[in-house]
């Protein structure tokens, strides 16, 4: 019987090795797999390359992972937000690398990684510093830049509901990067607030088919990053 549900969050992330590339879902706090990230901090893997739209807020979640100096390099589109202090400070000191990628290019590079497309052309960033040094090409008289797929060792993704096959449903705009990230990692680890029985999800509604998911962890009441920040929490507590 296929059963992708892990016994614990710590077991689920225990496979993550030093030097790994890790995709982390979320747009701001929406969709950020905060319990998986905290378990990753406990687990201790370091020298990570993290691909995520932002760099986390306050001293919890992704910001805490960075604060613990586990991240060598961030690949993201928007590394600063109102409550992000950790990344900016390390970046200014030259102690963390940054690859800045336009948001749509980031999403498409990840999708391509999952879809076996090694590279594609996009008009985004042409004639800007972000396209400098990259290969350009004209199609129908318009300029495009070649962008390469992102594939990762692991993906950490938050969703609303999962079943033992790894089929996933998301919640509103917390869906964001989750579905494409699930496809682009060798091992995708998902935290789900609800566990459904197979067949409970209408096959018309499944957003991420189980084939893209390797491990599911049941986190019934995931924390809200903004609430933790308002409470001045710092991980580990």
């Amino acid at each position: 019987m296929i059963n992708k549900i892990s016994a614990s969050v710590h077991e689920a992330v225990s496979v993550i090795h030093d030097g790994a590339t890790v995709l982390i879902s979320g747009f701001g706090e929406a969709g950020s797999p905060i319990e998986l990230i905290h378990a990753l901090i406990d687990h201790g893997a370091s020298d990570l390359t993290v691909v995520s739209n932002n760099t986390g807020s306050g001293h919890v979640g992704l910001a805490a992972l960075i604060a613990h100096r586990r991240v060598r390099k961030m690949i993201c589109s928007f590394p600063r937000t109102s409550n992000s202090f950790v990344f900016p400070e390390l970046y200014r000191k030259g102690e963390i690398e940054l690859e800045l990628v336009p948001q749509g290019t980031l999403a498409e590079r990840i999708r391509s990684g999952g879809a076996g497309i090694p590279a594609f052309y996009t008009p985004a960033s042409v004639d800007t510093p972000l396209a400098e040094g990259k290969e350009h090409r004209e199609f129908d008289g318009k300029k495009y830049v070649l962008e390469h797929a992102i594939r990762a060792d692991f993906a950490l993704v938050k969703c609303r509901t999962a079943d033992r096959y790894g089929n996933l449903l998301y919640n509103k705009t917390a869906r964001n990067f989750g579905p494409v990230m699930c496809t682009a990692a060798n091992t995708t680890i998902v935290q789900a607030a609800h566990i459904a029985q197979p067949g409970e999800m209408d096959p018309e509604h499944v957003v991420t088919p189980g084939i893209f998911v390797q491990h599911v962890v049941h986190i019934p009441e995931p924390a809200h990053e903004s609430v933790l920040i308002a409470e001045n929490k710092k991980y580990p507590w």
Partner: protein
Amino acid sequence: MVKDTEKTVTGWSVQQMAQKVAADIEDGSYVNLGIGIPELVAGYVPEGREVIYHTENGLLGMGPEPSQDEEDPELINAGKKFVTAIPGASYFHHADSFTMIRGGHIDVCVLGALQVSQKGDLANWSTGDEKAIPAVGGAMDLVAGVKTIVVITQHNTKTGEPKIVKECSYPLTGKQVVNRIYTNLAIMEVTPEGLVVKETAPGVDMELLDQRTEAALIDGR
């Protein structure tokens, strides 16, 4: 040789600018609003028009701000503010969201600007300051893909520097991408002939506008 009037004329308020932008958005348009002043546009859609708002983090059919007890940290816009979803909305993942943007499906994008050049070049993501944390978000995808790019901005910086310039000195978001510019002083259209002034705010004439603008302007009022 700055005249008194030049110093005191402030032109349209940001609300009035937003109203001007909204008046020029056609019924049935799909619209993406940038963070900040562009968000005001949603409040001024004329009676009888239906406009659908897209937010690049995965929602088509974004509705107004929720009441405080309806706030949902998993229902936010690209500026990470709480929003709602209208009946007829849909959620989707980021690659699908940027299919809408890059694929030319969004009709209008309203963005803020640091600088706009007379050729329609836009700089709105970085001042090039070495110490700043560079952050681009979806701006480069938006200007590359959306059919009509509208800039809404103060005509000058707080220290009086022109933002409508001959050539952008800041790093570009995109080259020849802006179609129309709405400032507190004027509405301008980027044309192959140059930057054409379509309307000026009360108390603003071409002389004053030229003094506040680095770009060459064509009077098309």
